[in-house]
Each structure stands twice: as structure tokens, then as C-alpha cells.
């Protein structure tokens, strides 16, 4: 294993409260160590550069059945963005749904080293892990969709929380998942029968349960299982004008649960859930209302879902929402139903500056990020590829760090959207320290990853070095420099190995796949009841459903001891 010494960089490590201090970072055997000496140590001169922990992405659709269907649906998306083979990397294609290898390389080139795939139908777990295995360099994990599973709905509606917890524990082990994902809780089940739920207190057809009970129930399950991440929620009514009230109710509904000041719920791609107005004509931003709530409460984390003006592909498990999007855009589409578990949909979508709605959406994401005072609560994502491809992160960082960059874009967007936007009233500009929180430290903390997102002794040696001098350049006035630096990391170090140098991949390694191995005493795993249910509900055999650990190229289980 290489021994590295990164010298004289400006280190940003928010978890250890280091804000731009000039210091050395020592690496040995893939971990960060106190100090290192000797002739074999490779030295990296990082003077005049920013040193940050490797980036972490809490929500990015990079693998799985629906991502792959998106690839099949959009040959024209690949045609415009082709990556030739090099001596170190394989060939591939972009743009909005890059091939697996290109995904890994592009994340690494930006200095990101861990990415979470947020929507895996449990039935498609094997496919998802096959793709994750072929995504090089970065570490990854995936969240199984559990909010609409029949067994979850049945056990919760009958108040059998312990049994539900045991089932979720089994499901996480069976699919090698990382956290509980809820998408439009209750609504996807209803969509299987051509219906939807209209708000958090609507009863799910065929099940005597409301989305509120599902969210609360799974939040309790999450606590019982001591999972590292909170529940990861895509709210009901997502993408519809006036949905912010429902979003607030979703956050409020878990307020009473005991949490020792730790977050209880993660509302993902919040931009899509912060719409006010009655229809598309009266549509406006509700970012201020969401921000006020978040500023007053500590049990929620959010991610942005920032819109980037580009031709992208929307894909979510929210089938009914994708149907609406298809009707709005008239574009080609795919809609799917995954047996008793979830649904899905894919629609190509072009976010245009000239459109009032799209420009307002762009504004909402930034308003959320700038109005929420605590950067640990709002994390940077584009919900790749739903609001834009992940390669736009440098652009978003420049918008957050520079008022000038925001104003420049404001001049080019729809007039009505510009006049209604709150952005001109906001002076705040993120510091590099806050950027390090929004893109790394905060994400790792929200995910409960102890060895990621920081540069303390014992952490994984995942490090990004950006050629940007915070002392010499006035960052706020030079958004272009920010963009260039974050687009091509000077160095990306993964597990103590230099994988990217000067924005080019110099070494391709396999990343690990993290999953949560829950030890539950009251294990349902081999119970007769589960097998009976399985035989009744599923088209596949119980034995074929389980993803064995040897299917993961590099398995990294996190041991958790549950209370059930």
C-alpha cells in the first residue's frame, strides 16, 4: 500500500472543525494517520490548493433496472456525449444517464468518492448490484424501496411494528440495502390499480392505512433497527403546485418521536416538494416556508434536487408523477409496476430557461440552500438525473458561492420567474467550509458513515484536492475559477491511492459496496409466515430473491444490532 503525505494544503474538514488551516495530511494503508515518515512516502505538494474529504452524494440514480431502461430509451442522449477509451479507462457514453464505467470516472474526476443509489426495487436488487459492481472507483450503497411493500403495509396497518421491523431487517439483508426509502408512500401501491393518494391523510386503497402512518411506522422501525441513516422520503404529491403543505405535514408527523437531537427523517430532492400555488399558472416558490420550518427544527435533513437547465431524463419510482410529466411534456415514456413492491416511470425532460415553471424550480433549489441557515441540514444534489446530471455540481457550487454567478444566470431566465424569485434579496454566499459541509461532511453525517466525509485519524483516505487558492483569489468574484477547479480535481485519492491527477483518471480501482447487516433476534428470516407470504405474493421463489454476499464485487457490511 502506498504511503502518502499531502503537504501544505488549505484543509477543510468540517467534522473536525478545521477551516482552511494550512496543514499536512498523512495516509497509510488506505487510512488517515497521525504522521508518517520514511523514504518511501510519496509527497504531494498541495500548497495553494484546497484539501477536502472525498465528496459524498446522498441521492443519485446511478444503477438499477430503471436507470438501465433510461439508457435504452435515450440513444440520442448518448450520441452527443461519447468518451473514448484511454489506456486507463474504458470507453463509455454520457450524458444524463452515463454508462456505469463513465459514471464512476466522472464522479472521481470531480473529487467524489461515495455515491448512494437511492431507489432500488427489492426485486431488482440483483440487477442493481451487478451495475454497482461495474461502477469503478467510487464506493456505493443503495436504498431498497420499502414504503409500498404489501408486507410493510399489512404489518403497519395492524400495528405490528416489531414484525414490520423484522421484515425490514430481513429485506435489507436480502437485498444488501443501506437505508429505508419511501417514495410517495401509499401512492405507488394505489398506482398499481390506476389510483393515487392525494395527501398524507388519504387512505391507501385496499389497505386500511394512511401515508402518515406509513412514514411514522417506518421511522419507528428505523429507530428499532438502529440504522445508520434516517428514513429517506420522497413526499406524496411531489412535483405538483401547492405540495409544500404536504411536505411540512410529512416533516411534522414524526416530530413527536424521541430522537436525542439526531435527525429522524430525510426529505429528498426537496425542491420538487416546495411548490406553492393552485395550478401551474399560479405556481410559485414555497422555499421560504420550508426554510422557516427547518430553521426551527432539528429532526430533518434535506437535499436540494437543484434544477440545471439542460436536456435530462427524469426517472423515479413515483409512477403516477411520471404519468403527469408525460402528459405535460408529450415526450416518450416508460411506466412500470414492480409486483407488490413499487412502481416506476421514466420521461426525458428539457429544463428551459425561458419557461416560468422551470426557471422558478431553479430558483427554489437555490433559495432552499441559501435560506436554511445551517448547512448541515441541506445537502447538495441534483437528484441525478431528474433535475440535471451530476456533472453540473461545479456549476451549482459556483451559484452557491458567488452572488455574481447567480445574478448572471438570473439575467437569462424567464422574466416573470425573475421578478418573483427571492434570490435577489439574498446576499449569502457559501464559504469553502460550508461547501465542504454541503457536499461531503454533512452528507456523510446524515448517512451515518463514520469513516467518510472527514480527514481525522482513522478515517478512510478518500481525499479531493482542488486547485483553488482561497487566500489569493477572491472566490465570490470568480465563479468561473470555482467551476473549473471543482470540475477537474487536481487529485482524487481513494483508499489511499491516487486515482485522478490533473482531472484525468490515472488508476481505476474497484470501490466497495456498503450494506447494513442487521442482527435481529426476532428474525423473520426463516419463519414459515414469511415464506408463505412470499409464495402467495411473488412471482419468484424465495431462494432466488436473496442476493448473496458473493454477488457484491467488494462487500462492506456495516454491523448493526437491532432492538427486535
Amino acid at each position, binding site marked *: 500500500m502506498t504511503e502518502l503525505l499531502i503537504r501544505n494544503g488549505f484543509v477543510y474538514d468540517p467534522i473536525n472543525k478545521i477551516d482552511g488551516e494550512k496543514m499536512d495530511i498523512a495516509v497509510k494503508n488506505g487510512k488517515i494517520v497521525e504522521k508518517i515518515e520514511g523514504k518511501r512516502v510519496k509527497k504531494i505538494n498541495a500548497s495553494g490548493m484546497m484539501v477536502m474529504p472525498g465528496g459524498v452524494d446522498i441521492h443519485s440514480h446511478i444503477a438499477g433496472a430503471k436507470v438501465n431502461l433510461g439508457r435504452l*430509451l*435515450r*440513444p440520442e442522449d448518448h450520441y452527443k456525449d461519447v468518451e473514448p477509451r484511454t489506456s486507463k479507462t474504458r470507453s463509455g457514453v454520457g450524458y444524463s444517464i452515463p454508462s456505469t464505467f463513465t459514471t464512476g470516472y466522472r464522479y472521481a474526476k470531480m473529487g467524489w468518492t461515495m455515491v448512494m443509489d437511492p431507489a432500488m426495487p427489492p426485486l431488482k436488487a440483483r440487477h442493481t448490484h451487478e451495475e454497482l459492481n461495474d461502477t469503478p472507483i467510487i464506493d456505493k450503497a443503495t436504498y431498497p424501496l420499502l414504503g409500498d411493500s404489501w408486507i410493510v403495509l399489512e404489518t403497519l396497518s395492524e400495528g405490528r411494528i416489531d414484525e414490520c421491523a423484522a421484515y425490514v431487517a430481513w429485506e435489507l439483508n436480502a437485498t444488501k440495502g443501506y437505508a429505508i426509502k419511501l417514495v410517495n408512500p401509499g401512492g405507488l401501491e394505489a398506482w398499481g390499480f390506476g389510483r393515487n393518494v392525494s395527501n398524507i391523510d388519504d387512505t391507501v386503497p385496499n389497505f386500511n392505512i394512511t401515508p402518515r402512518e406509513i412514514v411514522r411506522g417506518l421511522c419507528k422501525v428505523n429507530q428499532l433497527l438502529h440504522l445508520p441513516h434516517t428514513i429517506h422520503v420522497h413526499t406524496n404529491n411531489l412535483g405538483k403546485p401547492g405540495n409544500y403543505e404536504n411536505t411540512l405535514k410529512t416533516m411534522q408527523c414524526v416530530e413527536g418521536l424521541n430522537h436525542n437531537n439526531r435527525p429522524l427523517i430525510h426529505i429528498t430532492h426537496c425542491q420538487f416538494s416546495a411548490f406553492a400555488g393552485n395550478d401551474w399558472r399560479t405556481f410559485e416558490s414555497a422555499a421560504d416556508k420550508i426554510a422557516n420550518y427547518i430553521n426551527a427544527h432539528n429532526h430533518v435533513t434535506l437535499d436540494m434536487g437543484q434544477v440545471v437547465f439542460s436536456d435530462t431524463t427524469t426517472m423515479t419510482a413515483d409512477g403516477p408523477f411520471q404519468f403527469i410529466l408525460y402528459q405535460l411534456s408529450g415526450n416518450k415514456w416508460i411506466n412500470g409496476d414492480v409486483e407488490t413492491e413499487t412502481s416506476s416511470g421514466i420521461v426525458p425532460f428539457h429544463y428551459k430557461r425561458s419557461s416560468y415553471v422551470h426557471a422558478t424550480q431553479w430558483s427554489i433549489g437555490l433559495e432552499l440552500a441559501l435560506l436554511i441557515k445551517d448547512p448541515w441540514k441541506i445537502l447538495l444534489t441534483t437528484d441525478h438525473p431528474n433535475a440535471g446530471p451530476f456533472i453540473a455540481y461545479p456549476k451549482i457550487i459556483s451559484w452557491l458561492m458567488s452572488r455574481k454567478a447567480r445574478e448572471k444566470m438570473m439575467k437569462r431566465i424567464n422574466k416573470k420567474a425573475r421578478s418573483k424569485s427571492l434570490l435577489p434579496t439574498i446576499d449569502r454566499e457559501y464559504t469553502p467550509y460550508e461547501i465542504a459541509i454541503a457536499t461531503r461532511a454533512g452528507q456523510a453525517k446524515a448517512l451515518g458513515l463514520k469513516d467518510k466525509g472527514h480527514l481525522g485519524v482513522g478515517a478512510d483516505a478518500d481525499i479531493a484536492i482542488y486547485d483553488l487558492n482561497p487566500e489569493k483569489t477572491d472566490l465570490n468574484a470568480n465563479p468561473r475559477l470555482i467551476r473549473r477547479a471543482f470540475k477537474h480535481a487536481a487529485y482524487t485519492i481513494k483508499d489511499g491511492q491516487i486515482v485522478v491527477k490533473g482531472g484525468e483518471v490515472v488508476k481505476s480501482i474497484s470501490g466497495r459496496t456498503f450494506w447494513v447487516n442487521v442482527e435481529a433476534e426476532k428474525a423473520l428470516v426463516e419463519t414459515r409466515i414469511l415464506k408463505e407470504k412470499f409464495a402467495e405474493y411473488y412471482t419468484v421463489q424465495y431462494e432466488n430473491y436473496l442476493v448473496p454476499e458473493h454477488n457484491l464485487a467488494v462487500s462492506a457490511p456495516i454491523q448493526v444490532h437491532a432492538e427486535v
Partner: protein
Amino acid sequence: MTVSMRPKYLFKVPVNARNISPDAFASQTIDKIKKFEVWEGNKKRTLGELFEITGESGETPKETSIQVTGDLRRVKRIGEAMTEGEITIEGNVGMHLGEKMKGGTITVTGDVGSWLGAMMKGGTITVKGNVGDYVGAAYRGSMKGMMGGAIIIYGNAGNEVGCFMRKGLIKIYGSAGQFVGIHMHNGTIFVQGDTEGRAGASIIDGKIVILGNAASVLPSFTFDDVKKKVKVDGEEILGPFYSFTGDLVEKGNGKLYVAKAKNQHLDFYEKYL
């Protein structure tokens, strides 16, 4: 200023020559042009290895004209995304000629392969011979075909002429294959000869004029009227024509004009007048 090119041998595998274009040649010396990279199959070559190149290029793309003489049936992507200037091809040429072209002119004396002028935005392409499929079409999966400019074909064209066309003009003086103007959003297609049927499938708007025999009219088109004449690119063409609106499956409002003279089998429509 003209650059003349002639292939050194008959190409047996496809040659990807996207940099044979006035934009790439302008203000370059012949020696530099000879060093341009091209792919012959999976081998990287230089233009000088494949072509004899003589003449002189202009200062700007506008002043540059390129003349290629010989059999270029395996040469793809000539004039890709060109903005100005002129390309003249004496002989046959391969696929993707003038793809994404934005301006300038391309003239071909022989036949052309498929995807001629696909996704073009401006400029003019004139072909004296026959053309393959997907003239002025969109790339697979894309919904944006030809967006401007003109394609004039004196020979015959293949299937799916003007697929997903959004603007511009395609004129075919010979005959055309099936699905003329499929998925068209706007623009004009004129066919002087016969078509093989299913013209205008899934069109939303735009105009298709067929002077020759139209093997069939889709049932999703509604019959409007018999018109004496039709305008194509400012020019009046005398009919009479059967006029149809469609494609109703797509709630479309496109117009399909089929000349009465060569379409006796459609006269039953007249009883609906």
C-alpha cells in the same frame, strides 16, 4: 479558393471523415490538412494517406470550397456541422452527409447513402442521384429532426424522408419510399414522383405534397377538400389535389396533398364532399 481531393484507393471499410469540411480546412495549409486525423475502420489514419490533396484553402470557411472526386461510398460524415462554404462531390458518397449542417452548400453528382442532412439547421444540399433512407431525419430516439435549410434531390429517396422534421424544405423530383414525413412537426416535403404509402404517419403539423401515385392514405387522416393548387416554398403547383388533415391519432393538424391525376383509387373520397 478550392481544395481538390481524390481517394488514393477504393475504400473497403467505412472511413469516418468528419473533418472534411470548410470549417476545418479554412486557413490551413495543404500540408496541415494532410495531417488531419481520420478513421478507416478501426485504424487511425491521416487524410493525406487516404486522399491526394491539392489546391489551396481560403482564409475563412466562406471562402473555402472543397471538391472531392471519386468513389466515396464508404466515406461517412463529410461536411458534418459545417457552417459556411461549399463542398462539391463528383461521384457517390456514403452516410451522414451534411449531418447537423448549419450553413453553406453541398452538391453531389452521384448517389448518397442514408441520413443525408440529418438534424440539419441551415444551408442547402443538392443531390443529382438517388438517396438512401432517413433524409433530414432525427437521430434514433431524438425528437428533433431537420430544423432548417433545404434538401433538393433529383433522383429517388428511400424510406422515412423527413422523420421528426421541424422546419425547412425537402424536394424530391423522383419517387420516395414508405412513411414520407413520419412524425413531422413542421416544414414542407414535396415529392414529384410516386410514394410507397403511409405518407404522413404520426405527423403533428407541416405540409406534404405528393404529385405522383400515393399507394395509400392512412385511415387516421380526414378528407377536407379538393384543391386546385398548392404552394410549395412560394411556388404554386397546379393540381387538383385531394387535401387531407392528420394524423388524428396524434391530434395532429398536418396537411397531406395528393394529386388527383395519378390517384384514381382515391376518388371514392369525393363522395364525402
